[in-house]
């Protein structure tokens, strides 16, 4: 027992020694993203993007290094709250980037509010995330905008008059986005002919597909995540349901192409970023560096992860550099205006980014750029 205690004491001492670290000036920024769990792929991409962005702007204007401390939240609410608490009180971070999903960001929000630490989400698109909050902001657009863009594209470009909706009732993201699409689509004169429900993890959609087929809509709007959409598309094509499938940013994943194969050809979705739509200097530099390091094109998650980092550094600089207080950084984040980021030009209004959306589709087994829709 005594021996065990000794070992323990040595380990604790070692840990403490490790945490004191170097003496160089640094600004600590916490990052809370899912590295494991059901939405790990999003977190991993965002982290890759943020690391490239960090290589592009590693220091504040007064020469202090930005130190990113990444904690895994497993895509889980309790873990997110624990991680954010830990970052604030144990690591003494000045600001936090995270989380990916809206639900998790909401779990972190009260802790950030209470401690007056800015929380900057890369991709939480639910409108409630920033509502009534002073310290929560984001670099992505919100779902009502995304739903409107999709409805506009469906009516103006695809000339759809009727649509079937497939909602994943286990995802607040899907339920919300479907609602906003339906509202806009109806307002613009479209008609919803079928509304079917699926659940995250479902693999058999034959019942839903048969129901939709009976109504023969012009378009299928399926704002789910990629896994369900890929399997749905495969089965839909087998059953001769060949209409265009549209969705939101949740479809953008390599796994959609790999799992869906030929069946996802033509699948169209609204998202945040396309390498082709990049015009700015910083965007081109990011693209080059990302491709050099990871051998693939960055996706929306990576670009948003990078933007979260860049907006953060920009805000720290405007707030006075390495000695800026968390309060000042927060103010600077929320007053970001016409910032040229990777995903476009951002202006933050009440913590929400106002910016353009991109429409992409699958062609020859790849995501290709279709158009950009401004707010």
């Amino acid at each position, binding site marked *: 027992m005594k021996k065990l205690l000794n070992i323990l004491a040595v380990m604790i001492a070692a840990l403490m020694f490790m945490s004191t670290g170097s003496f160089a000036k640094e600004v600590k920024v916490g990052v809370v993203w899912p590295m494991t769990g059901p939405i*790990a792929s999003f977190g991993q991409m965002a982290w890759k993007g943020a690391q490239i962005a960090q290589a592009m702007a590693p220091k504040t204007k007064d020469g202090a290094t930005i130190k990113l401390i990444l*904690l895994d939240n497993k895509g889980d609410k309790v873990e997110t709250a624990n991680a954010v608490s*830990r970052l604030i*009180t144990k690591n003494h971070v000045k600001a936090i980037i995270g989380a990916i999903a809206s*639900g998790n960001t909401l779990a972190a929000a009260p802790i950030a509010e209470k401690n007056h630490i800015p929380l900057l989400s890369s991709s939480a698109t639910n409108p409630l995330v920033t509502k009534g909050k002073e310290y929560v902001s984001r670099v992505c657009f919100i779902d009502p905008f995304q739903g409107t863009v999709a409805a506009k594209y469906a009516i103006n470009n695809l000339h759809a008059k009727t649509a079937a909706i497939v909602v994943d*009732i*286990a995802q*607040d993201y899907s339920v*919300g986005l479907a609602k906003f699409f339906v509202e806009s689509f109806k307002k613009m004169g479209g008609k919803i002919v079928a509304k079917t429900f699926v*659940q995250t993890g479902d693999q058999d959609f034959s019942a839903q597909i048969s129901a939709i087929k009976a109504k023969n809509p012009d378009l299928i709007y399926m704002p789910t995540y990629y896994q369900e959409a890929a399997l749905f598309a495969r089965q839909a094509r087998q059953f001769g349901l060949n209409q265009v499938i549209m969705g939101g940013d949740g479809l953008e994943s390599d796994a959609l192409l790999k799992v869906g194969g030929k069946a996802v050809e033509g699948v169209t979705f609204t998202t945040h970023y396309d390498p082709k739509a990049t015009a700015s200097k910083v965007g081109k530099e990011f693209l080059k560096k990302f491709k050099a390091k990871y051998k693939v094109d960055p996706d929306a998650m990576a670009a948003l992860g990078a933007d979260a980092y860049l907006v953060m550094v920009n805000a720290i600089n405007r707030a006075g550099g390495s000695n800026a207080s968390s309060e000042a950084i927060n103010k600077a984040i929320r007053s970001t205006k016409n910032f040229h980021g990777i995903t476009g030009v951002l202006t933050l209004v009440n913590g929400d980014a106002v910016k353009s959306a991109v429409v992409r589709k699958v062609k020859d087994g790849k995501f290709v750029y279709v158009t950009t829709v401004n707010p």
Partner: protein
Amino acid sequence: MKRNQILTIGSIVLLFLFIGYANGHLNAYYIRILNNTAIFLMFAASYNLINGVTGQFSLEPNGFAAIGAYTAAILTLTPAQKEAMFIITPMVPWLQHIHMSFFPALIVAGIVTAMVGFILGFPVFRVRGDYLAIVTLGFGLTIRVVSNNTMSITNGPLGLKGIANYTNLWWSWGFAIAAMIVIMRLINSEFGRAMKAIRDDEDAAIAMGINTFKIKMIAFVTSAFFEGIAGGLLAHLITTISPTLFTFFLTFNLLIIIVIGGLGSMTGTAIATVLVVWGSEWLRIVEQPMHIFSLTIPGIPGMRMVIFSILLIIIMIFAREGIMGQKEFSWDSLFKLFKTKKVANK
């Protein structure tokens, strides 16, 4: 006898003195972990009452936690908040307008959960053994499915947000200690002896004239009551709940705790709760890159759960009794331990 009571009361007083100190002096991270500890203690002790003490192996705590959490949260949210939150389907009016303060909301959460437990008890206690485990597992899953689908009550997958952060150390530890006292007294009562009789040999218990259904029901409903309250406390600690929070994963964590502590031992459960909750935070280091002098070992995200599941298997194979077995910590045995040591020293 008297000495032991004084010692017990004394240590509870000490615990609350520590909480008073912690509230003012410890940082938010430690306070959060202390809150988690109290809530998990309450869950685990209730779970152990039905699994360990009564020997009815069941897998439903995630379902009960969900019911308690949703009930309490719906009651403390203001009508205005609810109106703003239910953006897809409006809430049913009588729930929308109901509003309560924290303490009565928790009690109602406990009562509602106990009532669900009571109704559930009728079908599930018709089966024994592994069947019971699977049926209760199915119940937990069904509750999650229902909370996803009843949009006008639970807000579906969107969950409830902006729940007031009422849970603090006084509430969480106050309820945890109260639950421990009630459960320990129940175990030492006539009912408790009947529960243990059922665990050791159900057929013999029936032969002795014990109404096994009634006794199982008492254990199950008590367990549901406290798990409901603990669920309410959890909701008011993390301030946002949704169906994904109440997966089988929660039950798995509790199962690890009661197995490590010893199936049937409440004091063992308390020790194991501290070990598991704190251990799981401490184990974060295996998921982060470690720099030991010039050596960098990359972290392995997700490793914590692998370690915990291996731990569970190893304990089941090599140390099935856990820390305390079916025994409880008692002051007498502690003094005895000191006495024999002294004798040995001489």
